[in-house]
């Protein structure tokens, strides 16, 4: 006789920590994901060419793009509501969450925080609606964890700026209408808004990815790209401006990774209670139960950590090293959960018919982008010791 079962996040009644509004937003995003993402995402992943424009419009209509920002058609949501949104999107697929993160927390946030009034008016309302897609070009082929040594240059030529360089691994780039490009100038690193297409800019899709295939990733080559003075983000001075955008996006990932882990775990529990070997469900073996229990404990701890960071953010107390703790822990644990779940599904674990392998390989990207786990470890180490171990 099987007794009643409880879901991994229901175990601690974590819902009771959320307000009615927060649950309502979570339910909305879960429903959108269930109806418009989940049934198709395995195919998008297999094809490597997801319908980013259509997705952006759907997310925009629901008010989920740049939702933490206020004004200019943005929803003005709380950090916790945004986090729950990331979690539900990533429970469907990390690639879809990446679309929303880059659009809202990187591209829109850069314009919202550092743009001129004209730039905000021009771009933000359409980006919030999902009609215009943005991307964020910081990483270069030879400069990833150390973006401060970037070689993309912007030089003055009369009243214009001329940009030359190469940006690599840029999410949304193949479909973007505007790119936030970070480049070195005589006055340090500055941000520029580059409408796409623009003469001199070549965007190519990176298609040989084995991870995050339901996200469009590209390379942006800038070859003497002439831009007017108005393309400069006036408020973005120095690398710290670029890093402040990353901090927003990383916060979303702290939650997002939990979504992928939850989906793996729910799928796996369902599988393990129905899959029989040696005459009984594999979930009935103590070895399996130990794995399920350990993974659930990590998932629930991760949720508490994410919620703590969210409440700090909503009261203006969130600091970058706190986000590093969250990203380091939650992505690392989510990846461990995905791998363990993969093994519990046996051969079916590598099948595209289940979401587990897809989440597992997606999380490999999530571990690397927005600051690798090593970099976040060093951020925490520096905060603890006062010593920088980066160089």
């Amino acid at each position: 006789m099987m007794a009643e079962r409880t879901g991994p996040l229901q175990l601690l009644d974590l819902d009771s920590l959320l307000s009615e509004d927060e649950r309502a937003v979570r339910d909305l995003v879960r429903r959108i994901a269930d109806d418009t993402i989940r049934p198709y995402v395995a195919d998008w992943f297999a094809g490597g060419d997801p319908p980013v424009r259509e997705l952006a419009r759907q997310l925009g209509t629901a008010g989920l793009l740049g939702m933490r920002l206020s004004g200019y058609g943005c929803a003005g949501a709380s950090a916790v509501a945004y986090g729950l949104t990331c979690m539900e999107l990533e429970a469907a697929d990390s690639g879809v969450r990446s679309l929303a993160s880059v659009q809202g927390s990187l591209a829109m946030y850069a314009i919202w925080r550092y743009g001129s009034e004209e730039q905000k008016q021009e771009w933000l309302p359409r980006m919030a609606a999902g009609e215009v897609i943005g991307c964020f070009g910081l990483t270069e082929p030879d400069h990833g964890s150390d973006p401060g040594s970037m070689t993309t240059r912007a030089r003055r030529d009369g009243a214009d700026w001329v940009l030359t360089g190469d940006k690599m691994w840029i999410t949304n780039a193949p479909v973007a209408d505007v790119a936030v490009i970070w480049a070195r100038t005589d006055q340090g690193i500055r941000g520029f808004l580059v409408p796409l297409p623009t003469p001199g800019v070549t965007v190519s899709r990176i298609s040989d990815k084995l991870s995050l295939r339901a996200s469009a990733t590209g390379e942006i080559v800038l070859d003497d790209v002439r831009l007017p003075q108005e393309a400069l983000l006036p408020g973005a001075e120095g690398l710290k401006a670029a890093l402040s955008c990353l901090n927003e996006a990383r916060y979303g990932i702290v939650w997002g990774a939990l979504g992928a882990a939850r989906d793996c775990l729910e799928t796996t529990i369902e599988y393990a209670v129905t899959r029989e070997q040696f005459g009984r469900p594999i979930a009935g073996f103590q070895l399996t139960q130990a794995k399920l229990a350990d993974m659930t404990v990590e998932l629930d701890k991760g949720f508490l950590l994410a919620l703590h960071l969210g409440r700090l953010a909503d009261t203006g107390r969130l600091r970058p090293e706190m986000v590093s703790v969250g990203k380091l822990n939650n992505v690392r644990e989510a990846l461990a959960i995905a791998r363990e779940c993969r093994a519990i599904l046996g051969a079916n674990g590598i099948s595209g018919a289940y979401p587990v392998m897809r989440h597992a390989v997606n999380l490999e990207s999530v571990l690397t982008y927005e600051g690798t786990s090593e970099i976040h470890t060093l951020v925490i180490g520096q905060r603890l010791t006062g010593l920088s171990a980066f160089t």
Partner: protein
Amino acid sequence: MKIVVLVKQVPDSGEERSLRSDDFTVDRDAATKRMNELDEHAIEAALQLVEEHGGEVTVLTMAPADALESTVRKALQMGPDRAVHIVDEAIHGSCAVTSSAVLAAALRTLEWDLVLCGAESTDGRVQAMPHMLSERLDVAAVTGARKITVSGGEITVERQVDDGYELVQAALPAIVSVWDTINTPRYPSFKLIMAAKKKPVTTLSLADLGISPDQVGLSASTSQVLHAAPRPPREAGVKVIDDGSGGVALVDFLAAEKFV
């Protein structure tokens, strides 16, 4: 135009549902509760009519207090202007007939040109609420709509039937129930969710409606479940050995089941 949409809280039809062992009513405590699926289509139809003709949409729900979050707010998040929530312990166990008396009393306190509802609820599946309300309120009821148009105080309904549709006209005010073929309900949005918090929800008790507790509930119900037993396991199917007459046997079967 003013539209009232009847919205019911039901146990999630995607889950295992059960009856209580004491009075054989639906075990609502054990279930995840949500808005009846077809009612979302009724709300969507109301919103579309109001977008075209102007006016306002009120949601009317008779349900326990916990329906406020699971159903009333969810309904308001789609866009209606306000809600009326009838809450009273005494209502538990009411049959369709007594329920219709309560809903009719509430509708008498509201102004409306049109009442919309889902063609059935996933728990009771009685399909009779529009007719009962039509009798009590003395207005036309048109059931099973797949399309509604309004012009000049008249409503035209494409009424879905097995082999096509019927065109039915009625004078307003009227009551119309809808099937899911009528539209695709919209998703709420973040903004609508936030706006829904501020929309007025009026709570009414039986006393507010001038109904005494002994007129409703299990004891006043016109029907009562005396006994319930799980359905026996399915019997094995019929096997037709094709000795040349297989085709005929197959057609006979399909004809008997009214497939052809």
